[in-house]
């Protein structure tokens, strides 16, 4: 008897449980980097787009996807990289944005800077540096509670 293969929806559900290695509070699906999941004959093909071209987490992300899906019994898996359309923070899910803020990372805003301090919610914030501890973040400071915090860059 042939075991029925899992549906695409089921697989998206599994991938939604794989955390981002750098910011484990959000999943790879929240981050918007999984662009497609499909069956090609007996191979499962997962299309992933990088956040930043030099992000060192990219390899770990691929490894984590492979590990998670192999654990669920997917035997034949192919990961494909897609560069275009280029990843944008618009693809970050609403749930992901809320999780980031609760974790202390201000979510990206089209205006280019954080709306408020993720700790005390004060709108009085200033930029320390355009770059931060990972390629996707910048450093800001709250001028009310004086805490520095990470801001997820808007690209």
């Amino acid at each position, binding site marked *: 008897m042939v075991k029925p293969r899992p549906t695409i929806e089921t697989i998206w559900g599994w991938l939604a449980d794989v955390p981002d290695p750098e910011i484990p509070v959000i999943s790879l699906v929240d981050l918007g980097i999984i662009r497609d999941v499909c069956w090609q004959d007996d191979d499962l093909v997962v299309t992933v787009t*990088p956040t930043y*071209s030099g*992000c060192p987490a990219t390899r770990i992300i691929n490894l984590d996807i492979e590990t998670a899906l192999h654990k669920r019994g997917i035997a034949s898996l192919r990961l494909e990289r897609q560069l*275009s359309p*280029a990843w944008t923070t618009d693809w970050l899910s609403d749930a992901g944005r809320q999780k980031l803020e609760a974790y202390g990372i201000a979510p990206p805003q089209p205006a280019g800077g954080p709306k408020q301090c993720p700790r005390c919610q004060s709108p009085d914030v200033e930029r320390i*540096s*355009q770059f*931060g501890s990972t390629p996707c973040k910048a450093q800001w400071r709250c001028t009310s509670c004086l805490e520095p915090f990470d801001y997820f860059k808007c690209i």
Partner: protein
Amino acid sequence: MSAALFEFLTRMGDNTLVLGHRVSEWCGIAPVLEEDIALANTALDLIGQTTLWLSLAGEVEGKGRDADALAFHRDVWDFRNLLITEQPNGDFGQTMMRQFLFDCWHVLYLDALRNSSDARIAAIAEKSLKEVTYHFERSAETVIGLGDGTEESHRRMQAALNRLWPFVGEMFDSDAVDQEMIAQGIAPDPQALRPAFDAKLTDVMAKATLAIPGDDFSHAGGRNGARHTEHLGHMLTQMQWLQRAYPDATW
């Protein structure tokens, strides 16, 4: 394979590789922690872009060389980067001036490459442009801040501009490789980008209160590999040391 296409791709990849390595030399020794992180992040973006360009170059060449083989197993005469990218870091001001001049050209070139007839090149350009636009914002702001800063910072920024100015012209040189890329709709004519470059440059230098040198002399020889400056060889002895001592070492 197309020899001109391979040449074009190594020019793109060697620019980002050599500048990326140069910028990474600041890691751990920048003036303040935030700048250290910013420089390291910029270097990381450039090295990431290098992987995309040189992987494609290796694929186009079809001799089994991957991005690592091209980066670590070639010597000075095979590199096709613009001479400005191999210039030493100097002080922080000189590093940021070099970054600004390069970013200013890079943004325009990548923007044009998004319309490349080669979809693989258009995709890399689209991805890189987002990162490079961010680099440009930072380097332009820093050049303005330091140029229009103290007497000391102004003096250093003017000296940096004077030192690097003779390397700007090479960005707009055009040769047979360019002609073939233009004919196939793969890449833009470098000369056509000069007016937009000058407009950006004039705007930023006015805000930075810096004087653009009047002398138009420019060095050449990086992008065609004819004659690099003495600095590239020294840089490669550092960058390629491990692979030269222990070829194909892995860990």
